[in-house]
């Protein structure tokens, strides 16, 4: 699994969270949905998205003594998702579905209206960094500074990713002036 660039992931003994850190249960409960959505926007596979979100939360838990002290630990978790999603093949989803019947679980899919599904398909067609920036921009209305923190790049770079990504989406989706959804 490609974890290059991932925030520190040393699986050592847990350290107690610093004073004032949020309770991990609250953090996980508040972040899980957004993490799953972000991961799905990048992979298009709900099973893989659930795994990615869970991996990010587990990674946060293992280092909660450090991560819990961050101003925005959710940013850290999104970075884990972004980094790991890039290396996540759809194959894992196929393998899961192939044997999912044994486990009594049907195919896990996200059902969206065609225009919404088309939009996220187009997002996944963007270069990885553009897709990540665009997904964070729309899913969570994140500021450029926040997105830069997640992606680990300069704010100016994020602005470029967003601008190019949005224009590419307009082309892919065939949006022209005067169109309405």
């Amino acid at each position, binding site marked *: *699994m490609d974890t290059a660039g991932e925030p520190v992931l040393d699986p050592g*003994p*847990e350290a107690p969270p610093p004073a004032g850190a949020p*309770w991990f*249960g*609250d953090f*996980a*409960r508040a972040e*899980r*949905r*957004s993490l*799953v*959505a972000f991961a799905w*926007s990048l992979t298009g596979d*709900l*099973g893989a*998205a*659930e*795994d990615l979100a*869970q991996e990010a939360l*587990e990674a946060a*838990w293992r280092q909660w003594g450090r991560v819990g002290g961050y101003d925005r630990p959710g940013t850290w978790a999104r970075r884990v998702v972004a980094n790991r999603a890039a290396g996540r*093949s*759809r*194959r*894992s989803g*196929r*393998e*899961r579905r*192939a*044997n*999912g*019947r*044994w*486990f*009594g*679980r*049907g*195919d*896990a*899919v*996200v*059902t*969206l*209206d065609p*225009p*919404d599904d088309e*939009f*996220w398909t187009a997002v996944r067609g963007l270069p990885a960094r553009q897709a990540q920036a665009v997904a964070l*921009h*729309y*899913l969570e209305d994140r500021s450029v500074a926040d997105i830069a923190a997640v992606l680990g790049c300069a704010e100016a770079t994020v602005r470029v990713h967003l601008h190019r990504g*949005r*224009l590419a989406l*307009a082309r892919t989706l065939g*949006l*022209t*002036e005067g169109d*309405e*959804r």
Partner: protein
Amino acid sequence: MTPEAHDEAVLALVDERGRAAAAALLTAVEPAARRDGGSRAGRVGPSHPDARPGRPGPAAGHATGTQRRRGRRVVLAAAVVIVVVVGGVIALTGGDEPSTVAGGTADELVAGWLPEGMAASSAQRVGGGAILPDQVGGMVVVYGDGAAADPWAGPTLSVVSADVAPGGGPGGERITVSGHDAFVDEANGVSVSWDTGDGRIAVRGSVGVDRATVVAAAEGAAGAPTIAPTALPPGFVEIGRGTLDAMMGGGGPGYLGRGAGLVLTYVAGDPSGPDAAVSVFQRPGAEDAVDLVRLTSASTRPGEVRGRAAVVGDTGSGPGAPEPFVQWREPSGLLTTVSGAGVDEATLLRIAEGLRPAQPGEIEGLAVRTEDAGASSPSGTDGSALALTSEVVVGTGVHDGAEWRLLLTERGGLQQVELSYRGSAASTGWPADRGVPPFVHGTSTGATWSAPVAFGLVHAGSRVTIDLPEFDTIVPQLLPVEDEDLLGFVAFLPPGAPGGATYTVVVTDATGTEVGREVQPVPVG
């Protein structure tokens, strides 16, 4: 209009589209996010167990869940079993993926032909007390028109007797059937279900069978697992019977059996190449059970594989279909199912036809290769294998007015430590031919148990502590295992333990060296 102004206008359209798509996506993943908080072993965060279907009927249209793949670090280690009671169904949920275990029968099959680029990915033994998500035992008997060329293609009535825990209520409109409370659900076909003293019975009609017919059949199913002939429509006869695992889930009842089985998975070896996977399931089953998979898959037909009567179907529903499957019974008695994703039916059938008996040690070798290809190694499995000739009672006690028993057992190639309490049991196991890991830990949560409980097995000389925030450290009493250098432990967590918090079990050996640590959530509610 300047180019810049044009761009801004177009970007505004993209933004509008993007915000709408984002809102829709966040709504769509909500069930999955809530489910993940609980059934996904809840290593983090609070438990929000999603309802497992406690009655026949198609599963929800989306986000029905996935098998959890959590790396292979516990492939050989004892895995945690969590008992959750959801909607009246006891679900044994593996904290990690099923264990890869040596053993099995001499008649098991492996792929003899695979498409180019496809190779073995994993070998897992499941069921039989091993770690299998959502195990529910029980029977299903199906009735259809005995004069029809293919009675499964017409209307059917089925009766399911599942050993789920009573409680929670199956849901639906309340009626009285044979003098007892029952519930009618007409969401997708008609089903009538009710709790018995030790489980749940459900009678379901396929689409096209009206409510009166199903209710009449339910009246005749008081002696389940069968329906009295007089309560059946004219011409209806029994056309299938077997354990629930013959149905393979597939969007239907979703029940799973408890029979020991083997799952081999083959995937396209090149991540950039064909995106496909095929799984081969083998478990004991009856000839009459072959057709049961037709209950849970709409697109099926009779077929033949390896000279045996088979059911061929496809459950593909989302992007990337087809997802074909075929099920038959081998002369050895193994009910065998081959299912695929991203492969066409012809390829799948060729794989099925090409299955061959495994050579001695071949499956075990495959498991070893799987582990080698996996992530970190499992926790220690040092020490000689434990010789269990019979069930061993490690200890008993009473908590909150009910007796608990801690047992050592061996089933289906797994040895396990099992805690029985208030009519249900939770267990966690390790391969029988390996030494007992230094720390075997199970946990059980659920509405039918009065409190969360941690239990397990450690080596002699070990010390076990359980830390729960805002509570004093718990030091459970250690229970010697007769004639073995092993100790069992059972620790009920204190009332008032905050749901969503986590507790940590730490094991140190005789030298004070930490040999095991598990973090588990305290269930919510």
